[in-house]
């Protein structure tokens, strides 16, 4: 049996609200890849994917509540761990 590193993904609507979020994800997740489709972006990463509040705040230049992600989130896979500072998707537990 081959060992496969499971992939997590996060799909966001691609609009002006998510531009900074996407940039923040790109900065914090070197291993992630970004696939732009009509109206959305599908971000995939082997193992884990992290959205950090601080990085998003730097990108958007204002206070950011991670729950604002709910407005533009389309789909995801993996286990979700959400607190005030980060939203982490992963298959590792």
């Amino acid at each position, binding site marked *: 049996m081959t060992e496969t590193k499971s992939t997590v993904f996060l799909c966001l609507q691609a609009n002006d609200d998510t531009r900074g979020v996407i940039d923040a994800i790109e900065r914090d997740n070197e291993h992630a890849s970004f696939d732009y489709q009509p109206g959305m972006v599908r971000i995939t990463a082997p193992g884990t994917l992290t959205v950090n509040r601080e990085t998003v705040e730097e990108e958007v230049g204002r206070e950011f509540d991670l729950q604002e992600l*709910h407005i533009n*989130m389309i*789909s995801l896979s993996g286990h*979700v761990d959400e607190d005030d500072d980060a939203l982490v998707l992963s298959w590792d537990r």
Partner: protein
Amino acid sequence: MDIAVTKKKKLGLKERYALMTRGLGWEPTYQSVDDVFPMDTFEGIKIHDWDAWEDPFRLTMDAYWKYQAEKERKLYAILDAFAQGNGHLTLSDARYINTVKLFINGLAPLEYMSHRGFAHIGRQFRGVGPRVACMMQSLDEMRHAQTQVHAISNYNRYYDGMANFRHHHTHLPYLQVPRSFFEDAATGGPFEFIVAIGFAFEYVLTNLVFVPFISGAAYNGDMGAMTFGFSAQSDEARHMTLGLEVIKFVLEQDPDNLPIVQKWLNKWTWRGVRVLTLVAMMQDYMLPKRVMSWAEAWEIYFEENCGALFRDLARYGIEVPPCVEQVRKERDHLSHMAWCQFYQARGTSNFHAWLPSKEDMDWLSAKYPDTFDQYYRPRFEYWAKLEEEGTPFEAQTPPQQCQVCQIPTIFPVPGEPLTRAEHTCEHDGERFHFCSEWCQVIFEDEPEKYVQANLGAHELYKGNLFGDADPTAEGFDPMAAAMAFLKLTPAESGLHKDSEDARNFDLWRGLATRNDA
């Protein structure tokens, strides 16, 4: 008076949310807990510690209202603009409208069912955490049902096949496939419902619905549907997380839960994929501009994504449902068989059918190199010849339906495309028919449930589809009586090229693009 303001310690999201939800509950003493929550034990699922529940997302009502209101404002602004600007005339082609018909007739009423189903389990689980999560999902599902009706309302004003979606969903035979699927889940126990809908459907299969419909809308110029699709998906992300949490929670609570959950996963993966037959067909045949084939979507969204999921669940002893082997074998046949069926039976559905053009067929050959040219192209070419000759082929008798999934028993033996699968069994002196081994397994596990199903053809023969008409009256025409009862008009069915929808679309679009003197 001491007015010294002491800075209180700030609570983290998780702590705070726990106080806001499970902190509200208490163990009743004036009534027994089993009387207050009478329905969450009969399925045999053992829960020892409801507090071990991990909240998937932690939205309190104030945040919920705030974010959902923002979504709704955006959505309705776009729906209004789309309607006011005759957005339907920007569609790629009039055939696309038939996917909208399939959507409102087949899917929107399920969203309503889901709303009531989650209200039911949102009352029945004795753990406060899952109850709150289910209540919120119940409210979201109401949103989806209503936004779909509102988004499609404008199409209904101009095109046929949608006006009677409520009546058709309840009575048209083909729509009993999705309806019986959902009623099956809703009439199961609370845990079965959430495994069926929250996990098997929302988590395992939702992307297979989402990609075809929403991307299909985007590719074909339907801004309204694309917007409500995206907007609804933002709730689905929460629902998927709830579905996954439920599975983990139940499996971690007691090893005895494993075989029950595995049985449900086997059942509902199969039930779900059978319902998705309609989506596969829509994707490969009904979208004028296609996004990806059903086979491709299956590879990405089942094999790849769910591969990760099942690898993760293996730690609990969960295995990939055995039916998946058959789904793989049917992958390259499913949409073709379904479209052939609808083409032949186009007189009894409320959307229009057509034969794939030469260009369509070349696309299908490329996407299905092992099956299309060999098994399906010849049939379509023959039917095209008959259409040309003015004698289009149409089936005259209602097909035999599977007692469980209610799809006509059109499927071949896995791996033998030319042999139709026949599965039957006897129960209480009556013979029942199935499309597959897996539907038969489901039946045999709960025959007393599935014998209750109302099958379209049987209902017709039993005289249940005649409404108030008197079958003993002279000159009684059973077919006409059935059509009247079903509220199915000739304008709604038949061939697309002969339809008023096609004519009107061309006429209206012509008005929009020409300058008549």
